[in-house]
């Protein structure tokens, strides 16, 4: 079974200085990326960051205005989409509404000239892969959203593409189905072994699915790394924000102490980890996750007043305002009244310092 559905060996995918402009607007500002065969890559970023543009450029649905795309050493960016042989799953599924499930899945095979028993066998396998047997003769309009999504995936992988492109495939599903399909998509990837590029704005999805994540902002790549890299060592404040470092306060380096730095911020002195080379006197942004900013008795932390607090199982999480007006997302081990004065202490090894642009 695994052999039958396995993808053709794709080879290394390379994007070199890929640019795309719409008139004066640069949607992609020179993207460089190399993807190993069989990798699962997530393009992560807020809407308008260029991630969908990048995917459409890979699919051939958009022309590049600069740079090259190579697959296994061969240039493919001048090929029409129909000549690339990639499988693509669209956000709206884009199933052919007038064709049955069988014919939708078989469409790519028919285009390749694969017909008859061979085509039927592969359609059956693809439908088995997405667990959709018995629905072959229905029209897409008769299926639920989740089933349509499965058809779209089967249609994309049945042609054994070297590269599978997925454009926010789960965004039209409800929360429960989204979690279910997330696990299935990873499972299908592991079975067929095709290189997969997955576009999403949801960091949970990216973290749980991808081998490596590419974080994009304003048409450029901010950081590439494994989920663990990104989660623990974001290299840019934008990436940190995406990874859940919600509190951002300005500060100034007092002195360096081994691999740690002492910083003056929020009206006190804190210890934190520099995310890059720093020297004493540098202006920095201090970023902290809510679970690492702890409300304590005492006065040696960041002085703040509680605005709101809610119980999220095990601990209370809240929002407080610092003396200088900063918004501080914190954790507490007991409920605190609104207006209560607190002292917030960050956990030094998980508090990051980014040097501000001059």
């Amino acid at each position, binding site marked *: 079974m695994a052999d039958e559905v396995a993808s053709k060996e794709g080879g290394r995918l390379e994007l070199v200085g890929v640019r795309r402009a719409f008139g004066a607007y640069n949607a992609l500002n020179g993207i460089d990326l190399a993807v190993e065969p069989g990798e699962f890559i997530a393009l992560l970023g807020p809407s308008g960051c260029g991630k969908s543009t990048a995917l459409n450029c890979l699919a*051939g*649905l*958009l*022309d590049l205005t600069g740079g090259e795309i190579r697959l296994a050493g061969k240039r493919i960016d001048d090929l*029409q*989409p129909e000549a690339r042989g990639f499988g693509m799953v669209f956000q709206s599924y884009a199933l052919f509404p007038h064709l049955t499930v069988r014919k939708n899945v078989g469409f790519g095979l028919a285009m390749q000239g694969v017909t008859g028993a061979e085509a039927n066998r592969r359609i059956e396998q693809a439908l088995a892969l997405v667990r959709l047997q018995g629905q072959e003769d229905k029209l897409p309009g008769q299926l639920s959203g989740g089933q349509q999504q499965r058809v779209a995936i089967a249609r994309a992988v049945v042609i054994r593409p070297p590269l599978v492109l997925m454009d926010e495939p789960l965004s039209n599903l409800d929360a429960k189905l989204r979690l279910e399909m997330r696990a299935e998509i990873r499972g299908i990837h592991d079975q067929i072994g095709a290189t997969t590029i997955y576009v999403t704005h949801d960091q949970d999805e990216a973290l749980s699915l991808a081998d490596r994540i590419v974080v994009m902002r304003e048409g450029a790549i901010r950081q590439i790394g494994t989920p663990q890299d990104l989660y623990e060592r974001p290299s840019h404040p934008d990436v940190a924000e995406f990874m859940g470092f919600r509190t951002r306060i300005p500060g100034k380096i007092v002195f360096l102490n081994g691999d740690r730095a002492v910083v003056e911020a929020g009206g006190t002195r804190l210890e934190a980890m520099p995310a890059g080379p720093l020297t004493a006197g540098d202006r920095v942004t201090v970023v902290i996750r809510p679970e690492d900013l702890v409300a304590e008795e005492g006065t040696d932390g960041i002085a703040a007043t509680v605005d709101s607090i809610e119980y999220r199982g095990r601990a209370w999480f809240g929002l407080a305002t610092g003396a200088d007006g900063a918004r501080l997302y914190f954790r507490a081990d007991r409920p605190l009244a609104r207006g209560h004065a607190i002292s917030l202490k960050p956990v030094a090894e998980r508090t990051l310092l980014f040097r501000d642009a001059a």
Partner: protein
Amino acid sequence: MIRDQSLAARLWRFAVWAVVALFVVNLIGVIAAVLVNSFGTRWLGTWLPAAWTTRWYFSAWREFQLTPVLIVTFEIVFTVVVISGLVGVTSAYALARRDFPGKRLVVLAFLLPLLVPPLTYGIPLATLLYRIGLGGTFWGVVAANLVPAVPFVVLVMIPFIEQIDPRVEQAARVFGASTTSLFARILLPLLLPGMLAALLLVLVRTLAMFELTFLTAGPTSQTLVVALYYAVFASGVRAPQSIDAMAVVYMVTTLFWLVIALQFVNPTQIVARAKQRTADA
């Protein structure tokens, strides 16, 4: 969005745009010919008239008695707009909000007058109107023009009303609105944009409606377009420039309202809005 840059694809694209350009150039030529002729002194065997003048407009206004014709035209058109607005919107409201036995038949009765060409039903209708003494009168013309106008308003308004959440009306009821204040304060403001679009389109369509008015109008109940037809029909009698001056007057009156209507609707909707629903019926 998928750009095929092969030679065949480029040639095909070029051919398609060439046909569009050819059509638009000819269309503008047809309209411009009327315009140019109406301002020309003498135009025989040359690209443009010998000299320019506005005197044809004065003579056309006099010869074709355009003042009374325009007055009658607008009386007829506005009467049709008001009646079709009242009748059309109430019918559309009932059809959008209620499911009742025989509804499909009712919808069909509103669809058919838009599908059957006016001339086909105009002849028996005109015969009947003459038989009961309305033929050739103001009200005869209004009655005939209501046949396509009311269904048009109904079919434009049904989807418009359907997209207004009925819970808005229920909420108003809950807060104690009477039927009158429900209508005046809630429904009317919500319906206004759709009504404006529908009625402006009815206005333009009635101004340009030739067949029904032609079959039912008498000497004192002719609209501008029918007067224009008679002028072109008897073209030996008057100077062609004078006829074209009248055509320009007709064009300006119609386009004035068309431009206003286009502020509220997409050009595609002028043909498609009402017709597209027939695909589902």
